[in-house]
């Protein structure tokens, strides 16, 4: 038994001891009891991102995922409504679907062929005489979660009493709207995803999307592989306009490319990147210059990472989705985005940009994963030595709208996430 486990038995530290304004306790990364509480009090209680509307475009379209350990199906029914159903037969508990995604007319359990409609209703079961007078089919649908969406982002909750999604997202909604402007007038669609696991706690990844400080160091090899213009674009370390806002409820946004925060705004001063010359040239054959500029300026995505507590980030040109598998293992999905109905050459360019950085063979993700695993391993070292999240406390200010604001390399976003963590973990 490790020393921190012994410590817990002797006397569990209070949440106030575990999470302070400028530091967090290392047990947050490796205490299995805290992890179980996180599932119950965070992942099974608040709004959790489960998909994008373009992934379930037509009736019958579905994708499966998990919230914590609990398997769910996100599916559009015949009336066009999106349902999030527990992927568990009401008879003996088998999953009713094991495909990642697809189109179905319903879900049939492989064990005894109980079959469910797209809205979860139990439609039929074989040899029903054994259930006469003891089973009412209307009482045994697949369990459904609360579902709501904003800006095409679908969220679900196991909690019937969860606050309205619009309240939960609060100040983040403005940034979600800005993010979607990279569609350049087309709706955003997903274009595939990279999935990888790393041996570390989910919060290490939650921190990372709002960690501007690591970028030029961990991603030195990525930066030296891109052209000078892209490298210049991502050089925000000393740019005073590169700021992080805490947005409340654990959400935060880190602005890295201030001139790309609102992609609709174009004063014409920005030179289109030379690396995209082939795209510019091709689009210019059929499009007005302003629309060509809009599309090409949007290829790198929005100029910020928006971190939504607890499991999704809208990160420049992609979604980062985290899924805790255990206290010490986390799955990450990096979902590529494109313009639905937009020009193929630009959507392909977006795929190539995604492949360059993301995924287990990308030029960025493996180095992130290495750093995160090192955090997990190092954090075992000593329970008395906290994790510091104090960077930028000396220059954090309150904006007129009440957001806490500091530099993009500061840890304001992490402090916001941990404040929400503490608030949710304090609830009974």
């Amino acid at each position, binding site marked *: 038994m490790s020393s921190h486990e012994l410590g817990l038995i002797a006397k569990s530290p209070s949440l106030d001891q575990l999470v302070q304004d400028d530091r967090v306790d290392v047990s947050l990364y490796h205490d299995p009891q805290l992890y179980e509480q996180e599932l119950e009090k965070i992942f099974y209680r608040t709004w959790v991102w489960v998909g994008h509307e373009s992934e379930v475009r037509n009736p019958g379209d579905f994708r499966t995922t998990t919230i914590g350990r609990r398997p769910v199906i996100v599916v559009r029914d015949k009336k066009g409504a999106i349902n999030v159903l527990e992927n568990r037969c009401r008879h003996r508990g088998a999953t009713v679907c094991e495909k990642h995604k697809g189109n179905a007319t319903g879900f049939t359990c492989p064990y005894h062929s109980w079959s469910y409609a797209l809205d979860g209703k139990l439609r039929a079961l074989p040899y029903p005489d054994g259930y006469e007078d003891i089973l009412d089919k209307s009482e045994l649908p697949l369990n459904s979660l609360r579902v709501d969406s904003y800006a095409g982002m679908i969220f679900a909750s196991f909690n019937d009493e969860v606050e309205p999604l619009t309240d939960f997202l609060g100040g983040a909604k403005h940034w979600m709207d800005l993010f979607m402007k990279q569609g350049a007038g087309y709706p955003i669609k997903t274009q595939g995803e990279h999935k*990888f*696991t*790393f041996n570390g706690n989910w919060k290490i990844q939650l921190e990372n999307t709002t960690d501007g400080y690591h970028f030029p160091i961990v991603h030195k*090899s990525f930066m*030296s592989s891109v052209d000078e213009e892209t490298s210049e674009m991502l050089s925000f370390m000393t740019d005073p306009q590169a700021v992080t806002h805490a947005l409340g409820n654990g959400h935060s946004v880190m602005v890295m490319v201030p001139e790309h925060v609102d992609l609709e705004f174009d004063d014409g001063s920005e030179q289109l990147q030379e690396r995209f010359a082939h795209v510019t040239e091709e689009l210019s054959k059929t499009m007005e210059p302003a629309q060509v500029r809009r599309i090409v300026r949007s290829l790198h995505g929005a100029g910020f990472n928006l971190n939504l507590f607890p499991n999704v980030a809208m990160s420049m040109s992609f979604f980062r989705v985290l899924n805790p598998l255990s206290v010490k293992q986390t799955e990450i999905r990096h979902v590529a985005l494109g313009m639905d109905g937009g020009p193929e050459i630009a959507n392909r360019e977006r*795929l190539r940009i995604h492949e360059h950085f993301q995924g287990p*063979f990308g*030029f960025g993700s493996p180095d992130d994963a*290495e750093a995160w695993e090192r955090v997990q391993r190092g954090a075992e070292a000593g329970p008395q030595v906290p994790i510091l999240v104090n960077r930028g406390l000396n220059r954090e200010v309150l904006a007129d709208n009440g957001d806490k604001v500091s530099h993009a390399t500061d840890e304001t976003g992490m402090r916001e996430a941990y404040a929400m963590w503490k608030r949710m973990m304090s609830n009974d």
Partner: protein
Amino acid sequence: MTEHNTLAALNAPLAKAIEFIWHEAALLDNKDYAAWAQLWSEDGVYVIPIDPDTRDFASSLNYVYDDARMRALRIERLSAGHSPSAVDAARTLRTVSRFNLLESSGDVVEVTSAQLLFAYKRGVHTPMAAELTHRIRFGQGGPRLEQKVVRLINSTDSLSALGFLL
């Protein structure tokens, strides 16, 4: 029976391809990326797709979709010492077998094979199984890779980022 005799019993294009593929496998296990780069033709394409069925790699999201430019950048990244994951990459050992000659026309040979690879890092062995397709041109300057496609059997699931090439 020596290896030489075994290969001699096969038809010549397949035997030459196998020799090439084994040589390539050894270079990758040894992380001799400079020598590996020399195996490629200028317009060669290296692909690790995600979609198990696609042949239209350009329109799909892949793990790797490298032309000569991206391949050179990748090799630079793996060799320069600035990438934490490459500096501390897993050690690998791979065997390639179950060869099947798909096509042999002129000096171009296309061969599929099964690759079983183990990666080892920090006490953990990670297996990675894949079907390989090599298209090799046996020209004047020696054999050159025109295309290599690596179809991992678990490509649509989560992988670990381990800092080596398949």
